[in-house]
């Protein structure tokens, strides 16, 4: 970000620098962690990224980040019923761990605030690159999180739901998760709240050789909240990661996904559903590296945009020279429901191997009027008919998940969203 230093700080930048000075004494961390925090706030002082930074071209953070509330120590969000019945729930309320971790065979849970002080975590706070604004913001302010360690070979049947909830102010958390070789788990990352908060959240997942992980991000912030999130994952040999992302809220949302398919034979699946309403701005930016041979990936993102909402999907697939026989396909389909709705898609492929199959496609459509007429001609009122068609558009992404409880839960969220915004 240094390249684009700007002489005059915005209100938001000034507020962040002041908030850092005010909160520094209460933020956890050993000396090495505090040095990382200091470096991070220095990067923010140099200016948030603008549209001139390629990775932020469609989301000019400097212009769009207008409100930076103070941290509110009295904010008291209430835990939510988990997305999937029978899940083990771990809460982060107003940026700190609340309650005790459940006892679960094969899983170790630790408070991140402890890890920040025990000398083991500073390295994990390094920025990913010079434009890693979410990384900088989170590193400067991170207060707590859950560290989850799943033992090699453990088969964890009950989903683990990590709830990060806000009720205004600022919250900054990290969710490092390590899944051992051959282990299997389903993790739900729940991002929600009730206030006009500035929330940042960084998840780091390491998938061991032969492990099989399903990770769901369910983001339902209120229309007043800013939500800046990052999901980073590295996949070991012959492992499998299915990442499902649902965005259904927020005023300013950026969800970065950075996945490195590092082990031969590994497979990555991304399924995304963005339900965008109001006048919010939602950006999903993925950078996927195929860095080993015989790896595969499929990315399918479906967007429904209404009101004056704007959406962005940037998908970049890098196929390294070593990654022969990579099979990668990416598709982004958008359904626009109003004249003022907007969606920008930017697919990119960078291929250095010569024996690969890669492709991408993008479409933007409106509701098919003849389909709508057909349904209405059978007595289905317009709102219900539109609901059926919108659901049909995104349901195929959800139904692929191959887990009935999960499909039901996500379809219920879809119905709720459409009842409010359809």
């Amino acid at each position: 970000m240094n390249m684009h230093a700007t002489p005059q700080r915005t209100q938001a930048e000034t507020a962040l620098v002041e908030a850092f000075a005010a909160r520094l004494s209460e933020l956890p961390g050993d000396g090495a962690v505090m040095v990382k925090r200091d470096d991070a706030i220095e990067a923010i002082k140099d200016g948030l990224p603008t549209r001139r930074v390629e990775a932020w071209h469609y989301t000019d953070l400097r212009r769009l980040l207008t409100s930076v509330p103070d941290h509110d120590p009295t904010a008291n969000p209430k835990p939510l019923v988990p997305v999937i019945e029978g899940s083990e729930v771990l809460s982060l309320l107003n940026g700190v761990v609340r309650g005790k971790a459940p006892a679960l065979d094969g899983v170790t849970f630790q408070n991140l605030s402890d890890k920040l002080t025990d000398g083991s975590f500073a390295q994990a706070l390094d920025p990913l690159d010079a434009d890693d604004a979410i990384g900088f913001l989170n590193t400067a302010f991170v207060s707590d999180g859950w560290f989850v360690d799943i033992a090699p070979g453990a088969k964890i049947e009950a989903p683990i739901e990590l709830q990060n909830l806000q009720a205004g102010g600022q919250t900054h958390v990290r969710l490092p998760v390590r899944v051992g070789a051959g282990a299997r788990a389903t993790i739900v990352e729940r991002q929600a709240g009730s206030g006009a908060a500035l929330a940042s959240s960084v998840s780091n997942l390491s998938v061991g050789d032969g492990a099989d992980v399903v990770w769901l991000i369910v983001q339902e912030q209120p229309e007043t909240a800013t939500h800046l999130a990052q999901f980073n994952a590295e996949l070991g040999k012959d492992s499998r990661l299915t990442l499902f992302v649902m965005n259904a809220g927020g005023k300013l949302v950026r969800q970065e996904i950075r996945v490195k398919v590092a082990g031969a034979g590994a497979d990555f699946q991304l399924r995304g559903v963005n339900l965008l309403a109001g006048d919010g701005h939602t950006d999903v930016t993925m950078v996927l590296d195929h860095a080993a041979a015989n790896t595969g990936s499929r990315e399918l993102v479906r967007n429904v945009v209404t009101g004056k909402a704007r959406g962005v999907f940037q998908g970049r697939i890098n196929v390294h020279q070593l990654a022969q026989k990579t099979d990668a396909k990416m598709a982004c389909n958008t359904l626009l429901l109003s004249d003022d709705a907007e969606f920008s898609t930017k697919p990119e492929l960078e291929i250095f191997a010569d024996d690969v199959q890669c492709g991408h496609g993008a479409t933007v459509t409106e509701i098919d009027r003849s389909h709508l007429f057909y349904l209405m001609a059978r007595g289905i009122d317009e709102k219900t008919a539109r609901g059926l068609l919108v659901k049909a558009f995104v349901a195929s992404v959800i139904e692929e998940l191959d887990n009935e409880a999960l499909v039901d839960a996500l379809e219920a969220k879809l119905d709720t969203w459409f009842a409010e915004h359809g």
Partner: protein
Amino acid sequence: MLEIRNLHARIASTGTEIIRGLNLTVKAGEVAAIMGPNGSGKSTLSYVLAGRDDYEVTEGDILYNGHSVLEMDPAERAAAGIFLAFQYPMEIPGVATMEFLKVALNAQRKARGEEPLKVPDFLKRVKEAAASLEMDIAMLKRPLNVGFSGGEKKRAEILQMKLLAPSLCVLDETDSGLDIDALKIVADGVNALRAPDRAFLVITHYQRLLEHIVPDTVHVLYRGQVIKSGDKTLAHELEANGYAGIIEEAA
């Protein structure tokens, strides 16, 4: 039951007038056939009756049981008992046929102030209707009309008609794309629904369908108007002599 008075309708996007002063009366219990050459406005008439907003009514009225339907949207007309069996039923991926049938049936029941059907009752009705049309119930587990053959789509339309039990049934070129066996099954399905309190408007280009669904009245549509009406013998006359004679006679 249906009274169309001096109806004028045009394509909303281009302003091209298709229906140009059409008059037609269909009584309860009557099966009225609408015949006419290509481009005479047959399909447009069916869409205008069902309320498709690609067409604008500029003059005249459509009275159904004495009340104008022009201000009603397609869903309201359907709930009031008007049913259009489409010439080309839409394929709608992602909408399960069974779910669609249930939502449609219960939407109409709700509009009439009736309780939604319980699932076992609903399934029983669907199974009975499917069996009578020799349809494989497995088909209904697929998305709506997706991958159905032309004949299967037409049977699915009649299945919907059976389930929804409308009082005015508009059949738009139901015979197109059907082989003779399928045509018989579909016609039997329609004939079984004939009742004193139900009327049919059977739109067709050919006499063939009318051998199986015998009409009470036949109306010839040309350039958006009914130019001749008669009984079923009029259809035979058309089959033998073509439309040219009648068109000349009217001109």
